[in-house]
């Protein structure tokens, strides 16, 4: 960097480039740098997890709760102590709301689709919006409630009400679910079922 700011016509008597720590790390260059003969790129490989500690990766903590539990619990208890209680209660309320509404939604959908003479698409559409909204924050849901949400999607996809699946907003939500990082297989399968039963898909096949 000093090469840029030092006057090439009147160089300083004491060259500060010698014997002074360089506080700048060269992390990328395409060649032609005085700091590196070769092109340089220190970027980590893309397969490296974004979680610096495997113990804190939800994949591991969820599936191997007992195995990595000690450090995780130590972290959580410490973090929870530091976190204000209002944040906790706020998050808990949100989760509780999701849980409660998903159970009710599934029951209502089941009754509406299986036991009503005529299915009201508006009712199903309203439930579908809520289900997709909940799945958008699927990290906050328990396995049981993810399962309920997926069952609800399957239920709609395989019913006569599946005409509402072609709604553009719903299709967008589903495609976002499919492209989300670390998405659970169960949700992906429900999303695929959704898309394959959507009337839009039938148009493609025709």
């Amino acid at each position, binding site marked *: 960097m000093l090469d*840029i700011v030092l006057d090439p016509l009147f160089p300083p008597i004491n060259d500060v480039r010698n014997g002074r720590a360089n506080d700048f790390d060269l*992390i990328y260059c395409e060649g032609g740098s005085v700091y590196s003969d070769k092109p340089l790129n220190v970027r980590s490989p893309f397969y490296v997890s974004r*979680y610096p500690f495997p113990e804190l990766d*939800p994949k591991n903590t969820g599936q191997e709760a007992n195995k990595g539990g000690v450090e995780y619990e130590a972290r959580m208890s*410490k*973090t929870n102590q530091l976190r*204000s209680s209002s944040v906790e209660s706020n998050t808990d309320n949100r989760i509780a709301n999701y849980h409660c509404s998903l159970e009710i939604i599934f029951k209502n959908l089941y009754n509406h689709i299986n036991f009503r003479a005529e299915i009201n698409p508006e009712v199903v559409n309203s439930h579908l919006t809520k289900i997709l909204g909940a799945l958008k924050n699927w990290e906050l849901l328990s396995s049981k409630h993810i399962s309920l949400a997926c069952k609800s999607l399957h239920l709609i996809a395989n019913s006569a009400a599946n005409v509402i699946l072609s709604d553009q907003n719903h299709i967008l939500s589903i495609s976002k679910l499919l492209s989300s990082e670390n998405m659970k297989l169960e949700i992906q399968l429900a999303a695929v079922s959704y898309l394959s039963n959507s009337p839009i898909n039938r148009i493609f096949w025709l």
Partner: protein
Amino acid sequence: MFRNWDDILNAIGSKPSETYWVVQKYIERPLLYLGRKFDIRVWVLITNKREVFFYKHGYIRTSSDTYDTKNKNNYVHLTNNCLQKFGDNYGKHEEGNTLSFNSLLEFLKQTFPNLQIDFEKHVVSKMKDFVIDSYLSWKKNLNPNKRKNVFELFGYDFLLDEDLRTWLIEVIGYYPMQLYLNLKHQ
């Protein structure tokens, strides 16, 4: 902050036309420093020779008030010095709401005693990844007049979440340096 899609559309719809806005996901579970939100500011220097330098001595910018997602007060959620300095509690906890990397490292070690935290490996290297990714995404827009012997300095803001993941918040091309100079002086 918006909680649903309609609110976002309404807010953007109310802005003047021909203006551009970026919508970002809010990180709901940031790592907190003594109950308050913080972010990490580092500097990156890019030369006309396409060299990208990462300045080793970044610093931490803390919020003045206790973190609470229910609290809509910006002083709780935004750690920008240009905003925080107008808050009633500015400087109450840390001088200039600023901390050094060493202070953060100490805090992390106390908070996660069972993890062998290497700040360079677990945090700085992630930040460098983001710097390179962002540089590659807009390098063609840099130095449009192909001037020689020039460089540009960027401020990168990062956030750590509860799982110690690093998130890039924003990149800016101009910022006041006085705070950093004060910190260096200490």
